[in-house]
C-alpha cells in the first residue's frame, strides 16, 4: 500500500491493520525489486529506524536524496569522491523527519553532486523513467522522483537549485515542490549553489507535500539563511477558497516558431489546464516580458551556479574525509583524488565557475550574471504585486530518451525550458503538478508564487490538482 496517499496509510496505521514495520518492509521490498531496472537508490536501508512519535508522518516510509547528511548512513552525493563517506551528523531535514517518526527507506540517486538534469551522471549508474525505461527521469533529484513515481514511497525529499525537484517530478508524473529559499533548513544539504539551493519534497499529491512541509519547515539556528517560522499549517490551508486568485503566464514562453509537434501538444495541454483553472475561479492573464531579459535566465544561472559550485566543492580533497587516492605528496593526493573523484561534467562546470570568478573576469561575468539576476527578480517582484503567481508548463518537452539529451551546454535555447530557474533566482515557492500526457509520457504545469507564501502556492496547486485528475498516479499498478 505504499503506492497510496499518506492519509490512507495513516488510517491503516492508526486502526492497527498495518504496522510501520509492514510499511517499511513493503517499501523496502519494492525498492529492491525495482532497483536493477530503475536504479532509484544508492542505499536501501536494511533495518527500520525506531522512533516513537505521534505525527502525521509517524510510520510513513520515505526516500531521502543522497546529498543530505545522515549520521552513520553512507551519503555519497552520487559522486565517486564521496563513495565511502559516512557523515557524522544529521541534516536538519533528516532529524526533523526522524523525530516525526517517518521511516527512511533509502538514499536516492542524484546527478553527481546535484549538478545536472538528466539522472545519468550519478556514480552508481543511470536512473530510468518509470513510465518508459528508455527515457530519462531528469534530475538532479532523479531517484527521489522515480521512487515516488514507482509507488515505492509516498514521498521523497529532494533538493532544487535550478529545477532539480520540479523537472524530474514533471517527467515522472508526480508532484514536486520547491519551497521559498530558507523555508526548509539547508543544514546538512551538500551545497551546490548556496544562494539558490533549497530542500523540497516530491510526492503524489499536493496534500501529501503539505503534510511533509509542515514537519520539515521552520527556522534553524544552524542555517542563518533560514526564514523565521511562518506558523501556518500548510495542510490546514490547502483547501482555502482560491476564487479571484490571479495568475499570469508569459506570452514569450509559449512561442513555438519551429512548429515542434511535441511542444505544440504541451502548449495545448497547458491551455486546457488553464481553462480548467479559470473554471474554478482563477483569473489568468497573459503577460508579455522582454524576451531579451528572459533569454538571460539560463546564461546567468549557468555562471552563478558554476561559480558557487566550484567554491562549495573545494572541500572535496580527500584530506580528512572522502575517497583519498594516494600520491607522492599532498598536492599529488589532492590532484589524484579530485581527478578520479569527479566526472567530466563536474570538472567542466568547475572550470567555468572558476574562470568567471577570476579577478580579471569577475565583473564582466560573475557580477554581471548577479546583476541580471536582480533585473529578472525585480521584474517578477513587480508582477507579483498584482498577481499571486505565474503558471506555465513545467518543461518544454516530455522526458528525453537517453540518446536525445545531454548535459553539455548547447546554444539552442527555449525560454520554456528554463523558466523554473526564476523560482531559484527570487527564492520563490514553486510547484510542478501533473497535468496529463503527451506521447504517453506525463507532462506537468508549474505554479510559482511570491516569496514566503508557500501556503498559497500549495493551496492554489491543490485546488487545481483536484480538477485535473492526475493526482496520485503511479507508473506501476501492482
Amino acid at each position, binding site marked *: 500500500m505504499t503506492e497510496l496517499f499518506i492519509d490512507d496509510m495513516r488510517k491503516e496505521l492508526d486502526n492497527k491493520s498495518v504496522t510501520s514495520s509492514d510499511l517499511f518492509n513493503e517499501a523496502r521490498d519494492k525498492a529492491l525489486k525495482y532497483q536493477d531496472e530503475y536504479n532509484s537508490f544508492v542505499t536501501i536501508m536494511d533495518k527500520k529506524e525506531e522512533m516513537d512519535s505521534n505525527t502525521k508522518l509517524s510510520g510513513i516510509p520515505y526516500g531521502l536524496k543522497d546529498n543530505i547528511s545522515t549520521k552513520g548512513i553512507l551519503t555519497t552525493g552520487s559522486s565517486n569522491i564521496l563513495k565511502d563517506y559516512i557523515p557524522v551528523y544529521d541534516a536538519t531535514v533528516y532529524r526533523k523527519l526522524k523525530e516525526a517518526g517517518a521511516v527512511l527507506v533509502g538514499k536516492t540517486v542524484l546527478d553527481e553532486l546535484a549538478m545536472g538534469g538528466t539522472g545519468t551522471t550519478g556514480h552508481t549508474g543511470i536512473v530510468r523513467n518509470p513510465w518508459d525505461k528508455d527515457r530519462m527521469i531528469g534530475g538532479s533529484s532523479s531517484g527521489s522522483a522515480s521512487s515516488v513515481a514507482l509507488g515505492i514511497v509516498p514521498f521523497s525529499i529532494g533538493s532544487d537549485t535550478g529545477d532539480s525537484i520540479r523537472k524530474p517530478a514533471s517527467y515522472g508524473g508526480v508532484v514536486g515542490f520547491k519551497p521559498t*529559499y530558507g523555508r526548509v533548513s539547508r543544514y546538512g544539504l551538500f551545497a551546490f549553489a548556496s544562494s*539558490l539551493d533549497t530542500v523540497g519534497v516530491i510526492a503524489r499529491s499536493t496534500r501529501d507535500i503539505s503534510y511533509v512541509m509542515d514537519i520539515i519547515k521552520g527556522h534553524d539556528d544552524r542555517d542563518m539563511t533560514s526564514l523565521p517560522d511562518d506558523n501556518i499549517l500548510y495542510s490546514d490551508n490547502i483547501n482555502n477558497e482560491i476564487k479571484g486568485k490571479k495568475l499570469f503566464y508569459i506570452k514569450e514562453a509559449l512561442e513555438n516558431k519551429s512548429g515542434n509537434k511535441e511542444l505544440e501538444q504541451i502548449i495545448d495541454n497547458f491551455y486546457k489546464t488553464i481553462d480548467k483553472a479559470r473554471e474554478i475561479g482563477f483569473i489568468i492573464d497573459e503577460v508579455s516580458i522582454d524576451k531579451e531579459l528572459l533569454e538571460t535566465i539560463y546564461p546567468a544561472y549557468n555562471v552563478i551556479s558554476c561559480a558557487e559550485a566550484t567554491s562549495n566543492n573545494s572541500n572535496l580533497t580527500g584530506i580528512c574525509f572522502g575517497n583519498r587516492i594516494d600520491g607522492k605528496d599532498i598536492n599529488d593526493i589532492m590532484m589524484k583524488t579530485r581527478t578520479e573523484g569527479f566526472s567530466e561534467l563536474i570538472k567542466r562546470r*568547475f572550470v*567555468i565557475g572558476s574562470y568567471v570568478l577570476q579577478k580579471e573576469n569577475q565583473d564582466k561575468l560573475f557580477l554581471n550574471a548577479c546583476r*541580471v539576476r536582480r533585473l529578472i527578480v525585480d521584474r517578477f517582484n513587480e508582477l507579483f504585486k498584482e498577481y499571486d503567481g505565474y503558471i506555465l508548463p513545467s518543461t518544454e518537452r516530455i522526458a528525453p530518451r537517453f540518446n536525445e539529451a545531454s548535459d*553539455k551546454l548547447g*546554444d539552442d535555447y527555449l525560454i520554456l525550458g528554463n523558466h523554473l530557474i526564476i523560482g531559484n533566482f527570487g527564492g*520563490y515557492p514553486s510547484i510542478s503538478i501533473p497535468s496529463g500526457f503527451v506521447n504517453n509520457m506525463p507532462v506537468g504545469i508549474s505554479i510559482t508564487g511570491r516569496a514566503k507564501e508557500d501556503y498559497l502556492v500549495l493551496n492554489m496547486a491543490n485546488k487545481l490538482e483536484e480538477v485535473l485528475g492526475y493526482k496520485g498516479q503511479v507508473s506501476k499498478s501492482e
Partner: protein
Amino acid sequence: MIDKNKLNDLANRLMFKMEDGEYDTLLREFDITLKQMEFIGNIKDIEKVNPMFYPFDLELDDSYLREDTFNNEIDFNSMLINVKDYEGSKVKVPKVVE
C-alpha cells in the same frame, strides 16, 4: 583568449586534470557561455545594477548573531570513520610541498 593551455592551467589550479578531448567540449561550452554573457554585458546600464547575492533580503540584524557559548559536537573518534591515515589523534598526510 581561451585555449587549451588556459583551460589546463585553470583545471590544475582547481586540483584536477582533464583529458584532451574533454577540453574540446569545454572550449565549445566556453564559446557559448562567453557569447551569452557578452549579450548580458550589452544590456543598457547593466553596470549600474547592484549584483544580487541572495534571493531576497532577510533583513537580519545583530540580534541574529550566535551567542558565544561553546559546544564541541564531535571529536577525533567520530572523525576516524572517514580518515584514511592518521598518527595519534592527528590526520596524517604526506609532506606538504612549498
